[in-house]
C-alpha cells in the first residue's frame, strides 16, 4: 500500500468520524430537547412571567453603526414578556448617527449614572434614559469593539442576570422566560444559551414576529440548514457532554457575578463569544466550581439574527469566525487533552480543534490529494467519484437527520414550499457552497497564522433582510 493510499484511508476515517460524531451530537441533542420538553409543566412560563419574584435581567445590546435597525431591535426588546428587566443599548463609537436616532425615537435625556467598575473600559461619553421607557438606558462611548461595549454596559447594569444579544437580533417574546427557567430551578446554573436562527425571511412589524418563513436566496437557505444542524441540535448535544465551547454572542444569559469574576469578554478577541465561552469553562474548572456553575442550553429560547445573503459579506463573516476560533483555541490551548478540565478538556476542546478549527484544512487536503491521485493515475476516476459521492451523501444524511428532528418542534418549516426549498438546499449544499466555505476557512486559518487580528468588513444590513420595521422619524 502506497503512502497516498494510506492518506486516502486516513482522510476517509476522518470524514466518517466527523460525521459520526456530529450525528451522535445531533441525536444526544434531540434526546435532551425531548427530555426538556417533557419536564415543562403546563403553566410554568405563565407563572414565571407573572411572578414578581422572578430574577430581573439586564438585557445588553452592543451596537456599532446600526442606525438602520437599532430602533426596531430595541422596540422588540422592550416588548419582551418578562416581569422585570432593563434594556441597555451601547453605541460603541458609532459614526452613523445611531445615538441621534435613538434620542429622537425614545426621547432620551442625558443623565449621570454611576456603577461599580469591575472591568475597565474605554471612556463613556454620555448616558441617556427615556422618560417613555423607564427600563431603557443608552450609553454612548468611545469605540472599543463589541466586548468593550458589553463590559461598559455591565458596569452600569443593575440586575443579577445579564442577557447579551446582537444589535440585529429579534427575540421571541417569551425567550427571556425560557432562558430564566434554569436559573429558577437550579442555583448551580451559571449561564444559559439559546437557539439562534436566521431572521432573513421573518416578517416583523414593530418588534413583533408575524410570520416565520425561510430566507429567499440559496445562500440564505444553505445557512438555514447549517444553523439547524450545527448551531441547534449539535450544540444541545455538546452542552449535554459538558463541551459547550461557543455560546453565540447573539443570545447568552449569564449570572452577573460570574461574568465579573471571569472578567467579561476580551476586547482584543476576533470573536469574543467563542473566546469568552472557553475562558468561562476554564474559570469554572480552575476554581473547582464545576458543580456550582453549569452551562445549560434552552431549546425553547429562540433568537433570530440576520445572516449575510451576499457572497462577499458571507466570506468576510466566515473568515472572521475561523480566525476567531483559532485565536480562542490558542489562548486556551492548555485545556486541550487536559484531564483537569474533565469532559471539556478531554472531548470538547479536542473536538473543537480537530473537527472545527482544522476541518477545513483536512478537507481541502483531501480534495488536493484526490486531484493528485487522479493526475498521477494512482486512483481511478471511479474511485475518486465514489469518494466524492460518499462525502456528499454523508452531509445530506446528517442534514436530513436535523430536519427530521426539527419537524417535531415548532421550528419546522412553516409550509410545504419552504420545506421543499429546504430539501433542495440540502441536496445542493455539497455541490459548491460547502467547498467555497472550505476555501474561506483555509484562508482564514492562514491569515490568522500570519497575524491578521482585525474584525473584517462590517456587515451592512439589507432593507429586505429580516423585514425589521425601518426607522420612521
Amino acid at each position, binding site marked *: 500500500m502506497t503512502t497516498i493510499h494510506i492518506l486516502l484511508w486516513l482522510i476517509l476515517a476522518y470524514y466518517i468520524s466527523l460525521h459520526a460524531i456530529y450525528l451522535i451530537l445531533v441525536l444526544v441533542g434531540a434526546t435532551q430537547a425531548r427530555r426538556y420538553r417533557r419536564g415543562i409543566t403546563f403553566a410554568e412560563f405563565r407563572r414565571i412571567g407573572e411572578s414578581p419574584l422572578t430574577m430581573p435581567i439586564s438585557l445588553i445590546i452592543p451596537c456599532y453603526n446600526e442606525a438602520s435597525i437599532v430602533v426596531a431591535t430595541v422596540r422588540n426588546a422592550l416588548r419582551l414578556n418578562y416581569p422585570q428587566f432593563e434594556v441597555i443599548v451601547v453605541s460603541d463609537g458609532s459614526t452613523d448617527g445611531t445615538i441621534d436616532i435613538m434620542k429622537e425615537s425614545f426621547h432620551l435625556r442625558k443623565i449621570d449614572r454611576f456603577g461599580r467598575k469591575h472591568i475597565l473600559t474605554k471612556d463613556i461619553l454620555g448616558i441617556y434614559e427615556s422618560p417613555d421607557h423607564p427600563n431603557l438606558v443608552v450609553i454612548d462611548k468611545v469605540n472599543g469593539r463589541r466586548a468593550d461595549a458589553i463590559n461598559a454596559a455591565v458596569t452600569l447594569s443593575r440586575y443579577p442576570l445579564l442577557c447579551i444579544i446582537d444589535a440585529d437580533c429579534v427575540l421571541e417574546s417569551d425567550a427571556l422566560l425560557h432562558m430564566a427557567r434554569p436559573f429558577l430551578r437550579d442555583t448551580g446554573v451559571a449561564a444559559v444559551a439559546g437557539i439562534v436562527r436566521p431572521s432573513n425571511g421573518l416578517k416583523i412589524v414593530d418588534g413583533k414576529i408575524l410570520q416565520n418563513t425561510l430566507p429567499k436566496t440559496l445562500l440564505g437557505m444553505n445557512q438555514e440548514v447549517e444553523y439547524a444542524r450545527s448551531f441547534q441540535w449539535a450544540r444541545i448535544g455538546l452542552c449535554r457532554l459538558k463541551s459547550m465551547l461557543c455560546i453565540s454572542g447573539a443570545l447568552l444569559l449569564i449570572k452577573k457575578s460570574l461574568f465579573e469574576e471571569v472578567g467579561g469578554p476580551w476586547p482584543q478577541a476576533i470573536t469574543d463569544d467563542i473566546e469568552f465561552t472557553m475562558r468561562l469553562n476554564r474559570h469554572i474548572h480552575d476554581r473547582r466550581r464545576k458543580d456550582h456553575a453549569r452551562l445549560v442550553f434552552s431549546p425553547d429560547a429562540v433568537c433570530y439574527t440576520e445572516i449575510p445573503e451576499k457572497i462577499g459579506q458571507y466570506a468576510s463573516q466566515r473568515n472572521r469566525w475561523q480566525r476567531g476560533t483559532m485565536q480562542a483555541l490558542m489562548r486556551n490551548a492548555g485545556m486541550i487533552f487536559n484531564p483537569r478540565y474533565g469532559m471539556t478538556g478531554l472531548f470538547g476542546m479536542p473536538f473543537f480543534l480537530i473537527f472545527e478549527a482544522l476541518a477545513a484544512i483536512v478537507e481541502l487536503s483531501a480534495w488536493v490529494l484526490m486531484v493528485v491521485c487522479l493526475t498521477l493515475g494512482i486512483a481511478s476516476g471511479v474511485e475518486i467519484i465514489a469518494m466524492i459521492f460518499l462525502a456528499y451523501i454523508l452531509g445530506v*444524511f446528517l442534514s436530513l437527520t436535523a430536519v427530521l428532528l426539527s419537524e417535531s418542534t415548532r421550528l419546522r418549516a412553516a409550509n410545504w414550499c419552504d420545506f421543499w426549498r429546504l430539501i433542495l438546499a440540502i441536496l445542493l449544499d455539497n455541490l459548491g457552497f460547502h467547498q467555497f466555505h472550505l476555501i474561506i476557512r483555509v484562508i482564514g486559518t492562514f491569515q490568522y497564522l500570519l497575524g491578521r487580528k482585525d474584525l473584517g468588513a462590517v456587515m451592512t444590513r439589507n432593507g429586505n433582510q429580516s423585514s425589521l420595521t425601518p426607522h420612521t422619524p
Partner: protein
Amino acid sequence: MNLLTIVTITAAILTLLSLFLLILIIGMRIFTDRSLDHEADFRKRSIPLIKAFLRGETTVEIVTPILLKDENLALLILMEEADSLDEEGGKKLHPLFAALPLLRKEEHSLTSRLWQTRLHAAERLGYLGDDTSMPALMTALRDDVVGVRFAAARSLIQHGCTDAVEPILSSLDIPGEVSQRRVAEIISSLGPRAIDSILKVMNGPGYDDSTLSIAARVSGILRSERTIPSLRHLLKHPVANVRLNAVRSLSSIGDHAVIQDIAALGEDSSWEVRSTVMAALGKLRASENIPLLLQGLSDQEWWVRHNAGVALVLMGDQGITALKDAVDHHVDAYGRDMSRQILQQNGLLEPTTEALP
C-alpha cells in the same frame, strides 16, 4: 476489502438511509399537519361551547360528548380556560373537569416510574382532582424529584387545602433563595386562609431558618396585620435572611409603629438587610430617618446607596431637599455620586456636560 468497495458500500447504505429519512420526514410532516388541523378544529368546536357553559347558556350534558372526543386535548383546553379565569370562574369549570374520565388515571400516574409522568399528573390533579385526590397529592409531597413536590404543593393549594401548609413547608425545605421564593408564592396563593398556619410556624418552636424565612415572606405577600408581632420578633433573629424577610414583610404591611424597629437594623452586618431597610424606610415614608438614609448613601454596597437615594426621593420635598444638599455637601464621594444619579433619574437635576470617566 479495498478502498473502493468500502466507499461504495458505505455510500450505497447512506443513500438508502437518506431516502428512508426523506420519506419518514414527509410522513411525519403529513402526520403533524393533520394533528395541528385536528387540534385547531377541536378548539374551534369546543371553546365556544365551554364559554357558553360558563355563561350558563348550555349544560354539561351538551358539552361533555364534544369534549370526550379527545379527552387529553379537552383537558388542556379546560386548563387554559381555568387559568384565564379568577378563582370563582375556575370553580364553574369543575363539572366539565369532572366529566372527563381522567381522574383515576392521573392519580395512578402519580406512582409512575417516570418522573415526568408524575410531574404532569401532579399538576393536572390540581384542576381535575377532588377531595379524594388529596391523600395522593400529600404522598406526592414526599416524591424524590423536587419538581414533582412543587407541582403537588401547587395542586393542594389550588384546592384550598389549608392542612397542607405545614407539610409543604417541611417537604420543600430546600436551601436557596429561589426555592424559598417559589414556596412562598405557592403558599400565599391560598390567601388569608394561610395565615393561621403561618402564625403557627412563626411562633412555634423547632422550625428552621428557611421555613421561618418563607413564613415571613408569605406574611408580607398577604399583608396580614395579625403577623406584625411575630415579624417584629423575627427582626432579632440571628440569621440574616430571616431578618431580611421580616423587614421586607413589615414594610409591605405598612404599619408605622414598626419604623424604629426597622431603622435599628440600618447598620446590620448584612448588606442585603441594610439595603432592604433603606427600601423599607422609603416605602413607609419614615421622614424622621432621613439622617440614617443620608448615611446609607455612603454605604460600601451599591444597592444600599441606591436604595437609600430612592427612599429619600420617596419622602417627598424633605427627602429631595436633603438629597440635593448631599450632591454638593455629602462627606463621601460615593454619596455625592449616588445623590446626583438618583436626582437625575427622577428629572430633578440637570446632567453635567463634561464626559464621564
